[in-house]
Every structure is written in structure tokens, then in C-alpha cells.
């Protein structure tokens, strides 16, 4: 691997990692604070993209960049108010299932309204083209914008968590809701705000993810599990952990793609002859680059077994 390739891959890895963080920051917020595994998170992400697609046709991309997430946030808050809150008292499983049901609904509604194929949601003129060129490879503005937004998200969520008591109120309310109310905190409103906020973050991710990549009904499902990996590997309740995990996964996956080595190579180097008849050849044959996209799951399983708290997490469940 030469320097050029290394630098480009590093850049790719970081930008992919930041994309993952952008996708998962809202989920981290909701998961770490409310303990709700929001399966509909990527549905809100998808809605963000579609809303922005429609809105930018009317009011332009930049206003839509603000308006769409706000709308999504409002939708999320409504969902919390009328559905999630109702099942909160039954525990985490029903909460999870309600969001599960929602994800079905959103998918169908999106397909009904916008059709089942890709919509032509394009980049605004300001984000088209490369930001800079490195060793002849262009680095597009759109991806830099994603990186910027991801960092801003990190900052704002971090401020929210450290500079306000919202996080404390929610964590406390998960144990003793009545007590928190008796101390003078409007718990239901805080829950609604946080859930709405998390959804708005998902929406924002959708607005810029949608035109950088593609806006299609499958976009929710395709990032569905990977962001859970990020949140869990990072450590439940840890924003910094999620950030670290995103970058790590981004880098691992990017560099793994470059490695065309398999166990066959390893054995051959050790002088062991491997042929198609060797037992387990299909496994030995797989190269690291082929398994790159599933490495995160392997990572997840290993982390949970050896460090159930996650990278920077503080609590186990």
C-alpha cells in the first residue's frame, strides 16, 4: 500500500465514519437517554430525504435543510406523545415494537406518496463538484458537507448533554418518574423534546444523505442495522463512544476493502498447500475485502462479549 492510496483511504474512512455518526447521533441521543431502541430511526432518516426532496422543489435546498428536520422533529414528537408514551410503562419490548410497526408504516407511506423507485433528489449547485483534488482523486463537496454537519451534530448533542440537565432528568425519570416530577421537572415534555430532537437529527441526516447518496425506499433498511452497531459498540449512553465507534468502523471497513488477503494466502505463506479440496476451502478462500462490510457485526459481537459496556460506555444495559 503506497502513501497515496493510504491517504485517500484514510480520508474515505474518516468521511464514511462521520457519515455513520451523522446517521446514528439521533439514535444515540434517544437510546442513551430514554433507553428506547428506536427501530424507526432510519425511517425518519428516509423521511428527511423525501421531505427535503419535495420541499427543495418549492423553497430551495437551503431553506429545506432547516425546514425538513423541523418537520421530522415535530412528527417524532407527535409519535412520542401519542404512541410511545402510551406503551412506555409496559417496558422496553413494547416500545421497541411500536417503533418497529412505525417503520413498516413509514416505508409504505413513502412508497405510496413518492413511488417505489428512486427520486431525482439532486445536490444543490453549491455542493456539486470537488472541494479539492488529492493525487488526482477528487474529494466531493457534498461529502465534506456531511463531515461538517456530523461534527456540528456532535457538538450540539454534546452541549445538550453536558450543559443542560435534560439528560439527567431523563435518566432519573427512567427509574422514578414520579419523584422527578415531584422535584419540579416536566418529565413528559422532556421526553417528547428529546425524542423529537433525535428524530430531527435523523431528518437532517436524511436531507444531506439523500442527495449525496440515493433517495429510495430501501435507503432506510440499508443503514438500519449498521447504526445499531455504532451505538452499541460505542457504549450505550456514550456520545463520545458512538463517535469513536463510527470513526473506527469507517476506517476498518475502508481499509479492509483494500486487503485482498485470505486465509489461503496465510497458509500458503506458512508453506501449507491449500487447494479447492481442502476442508473448509470456502471459508479459507474469503478475502478480507469480501467480508469488509460485515466486519462491523463481527466487531459488535466481539465487543459485547469481551467488553459489554462498549468502548466508552459506563453501564451494561
Amino acid at each position: 500500500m503506497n502513501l497515496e492510496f493510504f491517504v485517500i483511504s484514510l480520508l474515505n474512512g474518516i468521511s464514511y465514519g462521520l457519515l455513520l455518526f451523522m446517521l446514528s447521533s439521533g439514535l444515540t441521543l434517544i437510546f442513551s437517554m430514554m433507553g428506547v431502541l428506536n427501530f424507526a430511526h432510519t425511517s425518519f432518516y428516509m423521511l428527511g430525504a423525501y421531505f427535503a426532496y419535495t420541499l427543495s422543489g418549492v423553497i430551495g435546498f437551503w431553506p429545506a435543510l432547516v425546514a425538513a428536520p423541523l418537520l421530522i422533529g415535530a412528527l417524532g414528537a407527535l409519535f412520542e406523545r401519542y404512541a410511545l408514551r402510551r406503551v412506555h410503562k409496559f417496558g422496553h419490548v413494547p416500545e421497541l415494537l411500536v417503533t418497529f410497526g412505525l417503520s413498516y408504516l413509514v416505508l409504505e407511506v413513502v412508497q405510496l406518496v413518492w413511488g417505489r423507485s428512486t427520486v431525482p433528489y439532486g445536490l444543490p449547485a453549491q455542493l456539486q463538484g470537488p472541494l479539492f483534488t488529492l493525487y488526482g482523486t477528487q474529494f466531493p463537496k457534498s461529502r465534506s458537507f456531511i463531515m461538517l454537519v456530523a461534527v456540528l451534530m456532535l457538538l450540539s448533542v454534546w452541549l445538550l448533554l453536558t450543559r443542560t440537565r435534560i439528560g439527567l432528568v431523563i435518566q432519573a425519570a427512567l427509574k422514578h418518574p414520579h419523584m422527578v416530577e415531584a422535584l419540579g421537572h416536566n418529565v413528559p415534555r422532556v421526553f417528547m423534546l428529546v425524542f423529537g430532537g433525535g428524530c430531527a437529527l435523523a431528518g437532517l441526516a436524511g436531507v444531506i444523505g439523500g442527495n449525496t447518496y440515493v433517495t429510495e425506499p430501501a435507503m432506510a433498511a440499508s443503514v438500519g442495522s449498521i447504526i445499531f452497531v455504532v451505538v452499541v459498540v460505542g457504549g450505550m449512553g456514550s456520545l463520545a463512544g458512538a463517535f469513536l465507534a463510527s470513526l473506527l468502523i469507517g476506517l476498518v471497513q475502508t481499509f479492509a476493502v483494500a486487503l485482498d488477503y485470505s486465509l489461503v494466502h496465510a497458509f500458503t505463506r506458512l508453506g501449507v498447500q491449500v487447494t479447492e479440496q481442502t476442508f473448509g476451502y470456502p471459508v479459507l478462500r474469503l478475502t478480507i475485502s469480501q467480508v469488509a462490510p460485515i466486519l462491523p457485526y463481527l466487531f459488535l459481537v466481539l465487543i459485547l462479549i469481551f467488553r459489554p459496556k462498549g468502548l466508552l460506555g459506563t453501564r451494561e444495559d
Partner: protein
Amino acid sequence: MLKMENLHAYYGKSHVLHGVTFDVQPGEIVALLGRNGSGRSTAAKAIMGLVDWEGTLEWKGRSLRGRKAYEIAHLGLGYVPESRDVFPNLTVHQNLLLGQKGSGRGSRWTFDDMYAMFPRLKERRNIEAGVMSGGEQQMLTLCRTLMGDPDLIIIDEPTEGLAPKIVELVAEYLTRLKERGISVLLIEQKLTIAMTISDRALVMGHGSIVFQGTPDELRANSYVRKEWLEV
């Protein structure tokens, strides 16, 4: 200041308080005594809006009807529940922080006051409240409520699980609250500190008030003591 008249309270369909009437004046310590299950905690929860009730409940002349717990708290009522309810995975300091309303500016109490009151808490300020000893948790809940700067503090069995020496300490602090003009509604089972520090004692039985008077009067009234409190 706090006026309760003919209060009925319910858990779902079960009727627990049957017309309770009493009041608490500014700067007064009122002890609410009674046996297990007589409904004292329920009265406290009713004031805080945590159970359904009917009747009259007024605080500084304003009715508490239909108000949510957090609104009531903002009106200046503080509540220390018998179940303690510390927030186990928050640190001691964070627990106290949650006791504050808003920024905590203009409050009569600061963190330093609390830590001065119970140095033990200061030592343990950065550990998770859930791992603290039973007694330490009791101290924490008291301080947590004080941080909200209440004018009346309703405190349910504060001496439960405390070492005798600390019980004395708590008694001393309650008197000191009173000196600062804060009223106290003290729910107790053990007569010891209640009788020494309170201005007035109420005895509750089967969901209504069966005795009102000064501690001395109560001490003298052996019928009430035998019938409604056990000795």
C-alpha cells in the same frame, strides 16, 4: 399556608383517605403520626398531586386541584418520599443538581450548605447514588428536596434506616429549617424525634385525623396513644 379540608383520596378504585382536614402554618413543624397503613403517605402524595383526590387542597390561598406534580413543586412544595427514590445511576452531585429548579439562583440553599450538613455526602459526591448505603441515601433525598428551595417540606419517615446518632442530627436540622422559616410536615412512625421537635402533632387512623394537639397534650392522652399509636 397549607390547607387540607375534607380530603378523600383513591388508589384506582380503593378509597384510602376518608375526609382528612388539617393545616400547616408558616414556620411550623407539624408531625403526622399513625400506624402502618393509616394513610399518612397517601396524604403526602395527594398534596403532591401523585394520587387522585377530592375535597379541598389549598397552598398559599391557591387551589392545587388539577395541577401536575411539577407545577406543585414549582409553587414551593418539597417532598421526600418514604421510598427514597434516589436516582441510582446518577452521582450524588447530579442527584442534588436535579433537586434544583431552574438554575438554582436565588435559592436559600447551596451545594455547600448540603455538604456542610452531611459531610458524608461531600466525601461521596462523585459516586453513583445507587451504591450508597441505605442511610446515606436517606440523607441524600433530604438534601435533594432542599435544593429545590421549598417553603414547605413534606418528609416521609426520614429516620428510617438511620443510625441513632444520625437520627438526632436529622432532628437538629429540621429545627434549623424551621428557624429559616420553612414549614415541615413530618410523617413519622417513631415518636422519639417527632415529640421533641414538632409544634403540633396530628394522629391519623383509618384514613382520617383522630387527634390534633401539642406533643404535650398527646403525651398526656394515653387513650389516643394506646388506640392509634402503639407503644
